[in-house]
């Protein structure tokens, strides 16, 4: 620690240069944090997917329904522990920009199927007792300032008319990445009011299986049960189902990786250049340090220390800003309900920044270490 003033003094001898280099790290790591949050938002379904849950949708398309009668048939397949169903409602609140997912759920089983969503018992019971009851996610309640007891009008797009609901409960996620922007109401209410065509039809089924290792067999059995029927099914694990959704948006992973790589490569060039200049202009000073007895290894560590300090402080600030930005929530107003910078992404960003610091500093540090005192002192 007694050497830290040497690092700080050298860093602050050219304040503008240091500030600009710190700024480069800050911007790059902010962007990294932002992209990581976007990546997380797109892959949220994959992260929260239950290993023991299967999704059953219409084989033709997810927007095609399935008969409600399938529930009992699926429940009888060996290995199935629980079956529930839901419908996509697709309504808007007040304004079309206020988009968020609304599901008509089967209240008997839905809560058991998704134990990661936490609803107090009294609120759940109040929901079951009210035909027009609704349970809303914590985030969406916060966004629209809803509280238990509020009456909420939702304008249907698939199911026409204005539908009124009573907020009977607010659910929370048990993990930070759980989506708490959903709006649940009772399937029976939907069934009562909807067009006769939709009666007896549900959007999709969710199946809990006894053993995750048995997923392929159970999925096959479900699809086989309804093969050659007017409503054939496609069953896959919740993870595979979520991955299919991500793929529909294009190769987001490649896009994010490309942008991130270019940004880090540019950062490497900027920092490498800065460190090279910083070392070159004080060769004489480094030679003096060596002359008075500082070792080659110390000089190497000194230069590396400066490079790593820039990386850690600039990168740390960038990640902190990104974290603060993500704490403000989804910047798209509903397209990315899970817009969250995970601690693992922060650690990864910090490691990437430090790696840039190491690579950018190693050549100048090496040349400083190899510096011959006599040669450097001879230079004017």
């Amino acid at each position: 620690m007694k050497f830290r003033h040497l690092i700080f003094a050298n860093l602050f001898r050219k304040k503008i240069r240091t500030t600009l280099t710190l700024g480069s790290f800050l911007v790059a790591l902010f962007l990294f944090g932002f992209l990581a949050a976007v990546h997380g938002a797109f892959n949220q379904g994959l992260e929260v997917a239950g290993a023991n849950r299967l999704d059953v949708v219409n084989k033709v398309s997810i927007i095609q329904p399935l008969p409600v009668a399938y529930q009992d048939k699926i429940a009888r397949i060996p290995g199935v522990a629980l079956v529930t169903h839901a419908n996509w409602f697709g309504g808007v609140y007040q304004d079309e920009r206020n988009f968020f997912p609304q599901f008509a759920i089967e209240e008997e089983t839905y809560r058991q199927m998704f134990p990661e969503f936490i609803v107090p018992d009294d609120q759940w019971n109040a929901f079951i007792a009210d035909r027009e009851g609704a349970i809303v996610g914590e985030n969406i309640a916060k966004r629209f300032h809803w509280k238990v007891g509020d009456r909420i009008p939702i304008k249907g797009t698939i199911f026409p008319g204005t539908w009124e609901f009573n907020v009977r409960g607010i659910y929370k996620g048990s993990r930070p990445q759980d989506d708490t922007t959903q709006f649940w109401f009772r399937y029976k209410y939907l069934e009562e009011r909807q067009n006769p065509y939709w009666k007896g039809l549900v959007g999709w089924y969710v199946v809990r299986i006894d053993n995750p290792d048995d997923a392929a067999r159970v999925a096959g059995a479900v699809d086989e049960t309804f093969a050659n029927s007017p409503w054939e099914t496609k069953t896959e694990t919740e993870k595979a189902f979520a991955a299919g959704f991500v793929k529909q948006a294009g190769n987001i992973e490649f896009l994010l990786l490309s942008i991130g790589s270019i940004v880090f490569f540019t950062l490497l060039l900027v920092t490498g250049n800065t460190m090279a200049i910083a070392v070159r202009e004080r060769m004489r000073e480094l030679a003096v340090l060596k002359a008075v007895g500082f070792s080659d290894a110390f000089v190497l560590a000194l230069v590396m220390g400066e490079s790593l300090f820039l990386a850690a402080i600039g990168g740390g600030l960038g990640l902190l800003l990104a974290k603060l930005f993500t704490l403000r929530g989804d910047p798209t107003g509903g397209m990315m309900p899970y817009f969250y910078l995970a601690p693992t992404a922060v650690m990864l960003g910090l490691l990437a920044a430090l790696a840039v610091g190491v690579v950018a500093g190693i050549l100048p540090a090496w040349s400083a270490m190899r510096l011959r005192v006599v040669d450097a002192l001879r230079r004017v």
Partner: protein
Amino acid sequence: MVRVDGSGNGLVHVRGLDKKYQRGSEEIHVLQGLNLDVDAGDFVAFMGPSGSGKTTLLNLLGGIDLPSAGSITVAGDEITHMSAAKLTAWRARHVGFIFQMYNLIPVLTAFQNVELPLLLTKLSATERRKHVETALEIVGLKDRMRHYPRQLSGGQEQRVGIARAIVADPTFLLCDEPTGDLDRKSADEVMELLSRLVREHHKTVLLVTHDPVAAQRAQTVLHLDKGVLVEGRAAEVR
């Protein structure tokens, strides 16, 4: 007592020292079979024309350059065959460098510049402070210890350089044209300070200079000519 005839066994003991440089296809023989013995407490000035090898000799004695042949022994340590790491540690213990251009680190205060050699020791912060203050008091700049080099005159900078050289109490001081960048008055002050270090603190000082007035302060003046040392004049320490 300083000898150049290969007799004696002083604190600094040099035998058959050769230094050759290669410049393109040409080989330059800077020092040729040089012998030197310097006792503890001696004040020696090396004079000679430019390119005569004065600074090269000083660099070799300070262990920052390696000879082509010969040996250098300081306080019993034969330095010519030491590894680079050992030589670095040896320099920290035995050598105090004073440079023509002062070579202070501009972003460190006078105190921090003087403290540098002590950072390599196991002294506590309090002990380091005491040593630095003592060194700065000896050179008369204790009241300027918070100043940065740019806030000091050339003479003051050199005195800070001297404080840095003596703070770890090295075996000897190597001064390469310490007055070369100073006006007469400042140069006299610096030379008086070096004389005082010899006289009152019993330091051993080896000085390279072009300045005959500065050289007069030394007990012994040696001339380097064509790579060979020739004894000049011996004088009492003033």
